[in-house]
């Protein structure tokens, strides 16, 4: 979809404001937007809001054979999804160049920093290991997706629990979550990315740029770091040149920011685990603020209860009278079998869609709505489908009603017998000789349902 172009007025004002160390949303130059982390009911589901940018990460696990080069290591697979829901500039399907860049930064931050111990994910060396899959979805793009996504990914990885496994000799037992408490992943450290936006050839810098600021920036630098002051990844993009001391200054700022963010992540994880262990409610529904104006609320209404008791008594008395006749009706309801695993109770009404006059005559014999299992199966004369000669399939088989099933078969027998294809194929050679062209779609529809 076409994105709204950035006007010259906005661009000039933003650059002028940044030169005066002012930001449009009133933040200071090194300030982050309000960060909110919430976890879902499922383990491994984390939703992070940084201002208006929202990202959700979900962790899942699977037992797979390991990579050839590393037979004793588990596999971590990271996938970033940027759908048009997040921004009109994102195309559905393949990631754009920007998306590939972000995906690569996140992979380096999470995978190559070895924050999750992959050796502990091994079940049986060379044969079975856990594959941990991190799916990150960008829900809204209001600037600085990388930071938000890295927080979501690492918080989700810390939140996730995988099924417990016991290996005895050659037997591997994967315990269901009901039998044995699922086990957390062993996360060594929490790497978080910090983005710096540069303006006027590196003269001015902003932390956590919004979407408009990203559009006017010269270039950006992403530093992935953990609270132990270890740099996990470093990337610079854009047409600008940075001096050595600028890079060092940014990494010092990043140390402070990462410490704050790690604190917030750990507090959120603790709150969630406390809520879960104390039996209180947890999940996204609980993280919604109830005091915001945009949440649904109605004023108290005065309800007239003067006649309520009498009305209620009346309803109960009438209900008791009707209950007897209702039970009788239930006994009359019949289940008609329409096929393996399909039953029908009752009928549908006539079609309320407008139909063209020419189709009306064809509709009436079928009498849409009056079809029941019995009518379709044997009593109504249905002509077999004739195929035109221009079918692209090499072997076309027409399944007629006699090959499928008959009414007399019980449900269990249907399951085992299934469709008798061999007899149908034998019939095909006879059919081929009598091919006619032209068939109406109406007839084909009735044939399939039988």
């Amino acid at each position, binding site marked *: 979809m076409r994105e709204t172009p950035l006007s010259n*007025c*906005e661009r000039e004002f933003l650059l002028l404001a940044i030169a005066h160390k002012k930001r449009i949303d*009133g933040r200071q130059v090194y300030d982050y937007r309000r960060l909110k982390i919430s976890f879902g009911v499922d383990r491994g589901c984390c939703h992070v809001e940084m201002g208006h940018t929202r990202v959700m990460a979900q962790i899942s696990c699977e037992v797979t054979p390991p990579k050839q080069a590393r037979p004793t290591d588990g596999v971590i697979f990271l996938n970033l999804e940027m759908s048009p829901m997040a921004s009109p500039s994102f195309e559905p399907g393949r990631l754009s160049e920007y998306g590939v860049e972000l995906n690569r930064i996140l992979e380096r931050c999470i995978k190559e920093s070895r924050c999750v111990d992959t050796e502990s994910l091994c079940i049986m060396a060379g044969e079975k290991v856990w594959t941990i899959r991190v799916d990150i979805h960008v829900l809204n793009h209001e600037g600085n997706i990388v930071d938000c996504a890295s927080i979501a990914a690492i918080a989700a990885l810390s939140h996730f629990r995988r099924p417990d496994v016991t290996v005895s000799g050659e037997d591997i037992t994967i315990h269901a979550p009901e039998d044995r408490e699922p086990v957390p992943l062993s996360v060594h450290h929490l790497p978080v990315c910090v983005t710096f936006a540069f303006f006027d050839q590196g003269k001015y810098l902003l932390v956590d740029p919004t979407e408009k600021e990203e559009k006017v920036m010269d270039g950006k630098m992403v530093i992935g770091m953990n609270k132990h002051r270890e740099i996990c990844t470093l990337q610079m993009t854009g047409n600008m040149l940075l001096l050595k001391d600028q890079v060092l200054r940014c990494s010092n700022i990043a140390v402070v920011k990462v410490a704050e963010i790690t604190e917030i992540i750990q507090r959120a994880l603790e709150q969630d685990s406390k809520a879960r262990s104390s039996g209180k409610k947890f999940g996204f529904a609980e993280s919604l603020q109830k005091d915001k104006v*945009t949440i649904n609320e109605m004023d108290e209404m005065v309800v007239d209860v003067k006649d309520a008791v009498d009305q209620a008594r009346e309803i109960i008395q009438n209900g008791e009278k009707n209950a007897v006749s209702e039970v009788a009706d239930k006994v009359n309801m019949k289940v008609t079998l329409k096929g393996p695993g399909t039953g029908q109770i009752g009928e549908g009404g006539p079609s309320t869609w407008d139909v063209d006059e020419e189709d009306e005559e064809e509709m009436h014999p079928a009498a849409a709505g009056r079809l029941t299992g019995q009518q379709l199966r044997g009593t109504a004369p249905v002509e077999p489908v004739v195929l035109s000669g221009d079918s692209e399939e090499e072997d076309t088989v027409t399944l007629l009603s006699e090959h499928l099933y008959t009414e007399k078969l019980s449900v269990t027998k249907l399951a085992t017998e299934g469709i008798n294809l061999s007899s149908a194929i034998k019939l095909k050679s006879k059919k081929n000789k009598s091919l006619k062209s032209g068939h109406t779609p109406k007839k084909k529809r009735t044939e399939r349902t039988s």
Partner: protein
Amino acid sequence: MADHLGKVVIPGQVLKEFQESEATSKVIIGPGLRRESDLILASKAGVLRHKQPNFYWVDCRQKRYVPARAEHVIGIIAGKAGDVFKVDIGGSEQATLSYLAFEGATKRNRPDVKVGDLVYARLVVANKDMEPELVCIDSNGKSNGMGVIRDGGFMFSCSLNTIRKILSPDCILLKTLGKSLPFEIAVGVNGRVWVKGRSIQETIAIVNAIPSIEFMNNDQIKTMCRKLFDALTGFD
């Protein structure tokens, strides 16, 4: 009907008992309501409003603009195509603005408009079957405040109901803000507002003040403006 007035209705809800006007026994249904044979249904989620004698409409929160004739909008020049400018007004299609639709423009005397400029224009053609068309002159050929917006300031977007709220005569926001912080403003009903204050700080203050009043009543707006002015004079 009487019991739904001022309450939230949801799409598909059937509404009955409309009050007709005495002069012509007609009921005028506005945005958010539609008629289906002899039923009147709500087609948007929002609060049902009523104006004497017989106007009914649904007040809903919407951010996406649907172009309508005779409305004043702020557009961004997205490109040139032959004799016209292509203007983004926030709708599904880009609008066209002819070179000659400016005051004093002739074939020899082209207007000074570049790609990326902001224009304040009026829609002359806007229906669902055609590309919208804009002009920057009124029917007499005068610009009447329309045209290219120059010399600084900042443009931001807010929801359409906020725009309608600040333009309504009941709302005291612009008057209250203007008493303490003089500013220039251009409001486009496509959700875009251009503001220019005396300094960068004041402009940023107004840019943040306007979208925040979406759910405030007049008293809260007064309090907010007072707090804003105190904060601004406190930090220079």
